[in-house]
């Protein structure tokens, strides 16, 4: 009897503690809901901002790729015009080629310009995803059963998203010139030899064109230097011709750039255009040389003579 009369605080306190825990749980659940909604909203915003920039970036990249096709066509036209020996046709074709090169560079710059913003938005999205995952992780510790499983799946999906957003370790590969002449595992010896021959011919043409462009650039730079010297010689702000010194004559007009015809390019514009041509041709030659080497390695791994 005596033992039975001993008070049992646990028993009395058990329902009390249970009630307290229930109330606390309800309170926690009540406050977790808006926190979670906040995370969701931030994530949704970050997602939207990233996708908008990504869309723009991809659009710019596609435009650049299209322009590269035009550039190749302009190169072919210039080559054909050169072979024809028709000066007028060659001038026109070369002008188009310069314009295409400048445009190609401009579009590449547009792609490059967007890269920092894209990286920034990507980081922001990753951060939002990480915060969301951490929040779910915290929720998971408080749940069991099916809900816990669901949260686990959701966290897995978030982690997957985070890793898929990681930027590539190496810079994005540059677009291939003549992509149809890229490596293909189905290629046999004959196909590879054919590709090597085509690419070598193209590389030689690019080299010959580059030599001409380099010579033209040298001439234009010399001309630009002389024009600068000429401007230096003509400039004299402390000159002896005061206003009205030649009262009968209206002032000499300064012709705006391009003179009477807007299509006429200044020396600096011509240099810029040729520099763009040179840069693209150099890239083309580098890529062709690299691909020819790769094809040769493949060919030698097949055994036998390379030629």
């Amino acid at each position, binding site marked *: 009897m005596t033992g039975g009369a001993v008070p049992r605080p646990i028993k009395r306190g058990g329902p009390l503690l249970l009630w307290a825990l229930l109330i606390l749980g309800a309170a926690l659940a009540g406050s977790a809901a808006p926190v979670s909604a906040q995370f969701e909203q931030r994530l949704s915003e970050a997602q939207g901002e990233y996708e908008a920039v990504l869309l723009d970036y991809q659009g710019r990249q596609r435009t650049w790729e299209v322009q590269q096709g035009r550039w190749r066509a302009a190169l072919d036209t210039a080559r054909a015009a050169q072979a024809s020996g028709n000066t007028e046709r060659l001038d026109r074709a070369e002008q188009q080629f310069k314009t295409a090169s400048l445009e190609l560079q401009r579009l590449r710059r547009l792609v490059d310009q967007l890269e920092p913003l894209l990286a920034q938005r990507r980081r922001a999205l990753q951060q939002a995803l990480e915060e969301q995952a951490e929040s779910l992780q915290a929720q998971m510790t408080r749940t069991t059963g099916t809900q816990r499983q669901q949260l686990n799946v959701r966290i897995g999906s978030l982690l997957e998203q985070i890793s898929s957003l990681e930027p590539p370790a190496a810079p994005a590969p540059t677009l291939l010139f003549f992509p149809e002449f890229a490596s293909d595992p189905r290629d046999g010896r004959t196909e590879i030899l054919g590709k090597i021959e085509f690419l070598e011919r193209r590389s030689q043409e690019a080299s010959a064109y580059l030599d001409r462009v380099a010579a033209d650039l040298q*001439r234009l730079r010399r*001309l630009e*230097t*002389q*024009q*600068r*010297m*000429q*401007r*230096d*010689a*003509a*400039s*004299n*702000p*402390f000159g*002896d*011709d*005061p*206003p*009205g*010194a*030649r*009262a*009968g*004559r*209206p*002032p000499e*007009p*300064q*012709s*705006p*750039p*391009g*003179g*009477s*015809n*807007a299509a006429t390019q*200044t020396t*600096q*514009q011509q240099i*810029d255009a040729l520099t763009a041509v040179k840069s693209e041709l150099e890239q083309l030659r580098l890529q062709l040389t690299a691909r020819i080497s790769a094809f040769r390695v493949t060919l030698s791994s097949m055994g036998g003579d390379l030629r």
Partner: protein
Amino acid sequence: MSLKIGGLRTAWLLACCIMLADTPTGVSAQANDFVVTMGVSAESYSGNFSAVTLTVVDSTTRAAAAVGQFGTRGHRNFYLDDSKTLRLAFDGGVRQFAAMGFELRDYAPREWVSQLEVGYGQTFDGVGRLMLDGSYRGHAIEDRPPMPLFLQPGYNAFRGMGRFRFLPVGGASLDALLDLESANYSAPAQLSHLDLLDRRSSGFEVGLASGGEDWSIRLFSGLRWSHYERQQFGDDPFRRDRATNVGATWSINRMERDTKPLTASLSVEGTMNRSNSRRPEYNALSVTSQLFTPLPWWGLNASGRALLTWKNYIVETPFARLVPGEEADNASIIEAALSRELAKNLTAQLRFGWTRAETDIGNSYFERFGTTLLFNFRPGG
């Protein structure tokens, strides 16, 4: 005076900032040249004349000066689209003289100049090209010496100009030019008659140009009206001049040639100035020539400029009061220079100059000889 110099300096600094600023989005800029110049000169002046625009008179007939100068200049071209261009240009600097040879005292004049220009061009398909140009030229001077060391008084001049060049028809192209100018002289209290030089003028010129692959010839003729609203004559409210000019310019540009490249021009122009005042009525003939050519030795370039003027007054007035270089076709100038590139962004120039200009007294001239060593540095390479 100090306020004017302050304004001039501000304009100069502002122009430098515009030149170095980023290009607005959507506009392709080209350009562009930005040059810092530094140089030293030795100059000698001769003539024993007084000047109406000076308060001090010195009895010396010869004066000399050592001069140091610093300046910047540049231009920037903006391609708004395929047919429209905008050009900004400026040129300005400061020159410090140490003048010697005067009887009264040695002078140390300091001269500030600034020139700003905005040009707009637009091509109209199948018609031609329109060019609009607005410019400001300012000049300020401290401790201005007496004659014969002539330095211009301070002034501000504004110009607006429009020119249309039609596309060639049958190998010849027509152009028409209209311009407006306003010049305002800074007259200190003790030299209020400097205001007499304040002027508003407008001009119209038409030209016909033709030529070959690297040369052209342009015949031109024009009319010019000048109003000196502070010069009153009898019943006339103010002095009004009308000048008619006719001339021809031949020019050649062979700079793109690999052998013997050069640019040169020769211009002959006759001017007939008539006025409601008999004093400044004259007929003048001027010949201008310019040349620039690389020399075959040591990477040198030679350049030259000559402006020779002959003038006859309709009425001889021994006390005709003119201001040197201000009122008439009265200056003859010969300049020759050798220049060379010292580094990719540094050129040096040795200039020789001779000037003969009319003084206050009609048909009396002062002379100036000068040698300048000038360095042009391009910070942008």
